[in-house]
């Protein structure tokens, strides 16, 4: 086969293009992160999930240990059912507490796991029974106002 003068330039072009893609995947994206590793799924039910989103991080002591896989509403109990996918390198005891917290003042919401002392670990399909719902700003404010109002009526009487 005859060698053409374009071969080298085109080969270089394709190679740099693929290198750029690798750069984007490794350095800009998070291909090397948790996304690729398999994990086990546990279920957590919350009264209110606030602004929690699918793919939000699951953290323990600030370290990302998994992601929120799906969020659905249980039509029987009207609780939000969140499936958390946790990296299999991390084990949590049965009595772990899951709570929804906010990173920073305006940051995104995440699920925080606080490990308990049980010697039995959570496995695939298990359910975290102790949960703490997200704080809803409006509820906090209305609670605060309600308390204030009841306080002031208390003093006038």
């Amino acid at each position, binding site marked *: 086969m005859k060698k053409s003068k374009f071969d080298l330039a085109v080969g270089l072009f394709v190679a740099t*293009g693929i290198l*750029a893609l690798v750069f984007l995947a490794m350095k800009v*994206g998070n291909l090397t992160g948790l996304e690729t590793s398999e994990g086990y799924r546990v279920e957590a039910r919350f009264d209110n999930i606030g602004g929690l989103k699918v793919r939000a991080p699951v953290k323990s002591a600030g370290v990302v240990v998994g992601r929120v896989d799906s969020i659905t509403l249980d039509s029987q109990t009207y609780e939000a059912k969140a499936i958390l996918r946790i990296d299999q390198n991390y084990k949590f005891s049965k009595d772990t507490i899951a709570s929804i917290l906010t990173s920073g003042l305006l940051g995104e919401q995440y699920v925080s796991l606080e490990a308990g002392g049980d010697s039995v670990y959570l496995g695939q399909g298990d359910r975290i029974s102790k949960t703490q719902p997200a704080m809803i700003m409006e509820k906090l404010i209305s609670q605060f106002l309600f308390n204030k109002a009841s306080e002031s009526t208390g003093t006038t009487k």
Partner: protein
Amino acid sequence: MSNVIEMIEGLGRTVLNGLARLGLAGRFFLAIMMVIGVPVRRFSLLVRELYFSGVRSLLIIVVSGMFVGMVLAIQGYEVLQRFGSSETLGVLVALSLVRELGPVVTALLFAGRAGSAVTAEIGLMQATDQIAAMDMMAVNPIARIISPRFLASVVSMPLLACLFSTAGVFGAYLVGVKLIGIDDGSFWSQMQAGVDFRLDIINGLIKSLVFGVAVGLIAVFEGYYAPPTAEGVSSATTRTVVTSSLAVLMLDFVLTVWMFRGLNG
């Protein structure tokens, strides 16, 4: 009264002509797809077109990508520092580049740089009866001339878009970290935390692949069906740039709605 009727007739003619042209383009696309194996088998044909479309567009893509990234960094910093979150500049720049600007600006530049050249080349071949001569020699011009150019556009577009985004991220790094002085570590770590491979990078690649098909098809179509005159070739070249720019922007809207809507739901 007859004036009004003429106007309505003209309107109808324009719409019908446009529709017929769309149908012709669809048939042309099918004809290309039938022989798309030819440039794969005769690889040197594809390599030649990759050189003229892809390699020769490299400089303009990389330089513009870098400047777009630099401008994004400056403008993004101006806004973000008001909220005291200038560290998130990396996410802002990377997401806008990978999701939108990379594929779209690359496609627009590619249409202007390579698409117009392809149209002019094929149009001139048509005008000088080279394509008819090829047909006479029982060489399928669609397999020999059109499909390598089309495939080259489809192949080089995602590669160029990746290079554009990479150059843009590098430009933003230069301005953001080296010039403005955002912390190096948080620039990259925020970027890695905010950009998802499957969701952002792969979707950006799919976008640029679609744009490659659109720009490539429009360029070869306009060239192949250009009126065989000097004026016809020149207006076909203009139409390539205008139509493919519009097509890219409209397709981008459709694809963005499809890919990124309801993402945060």
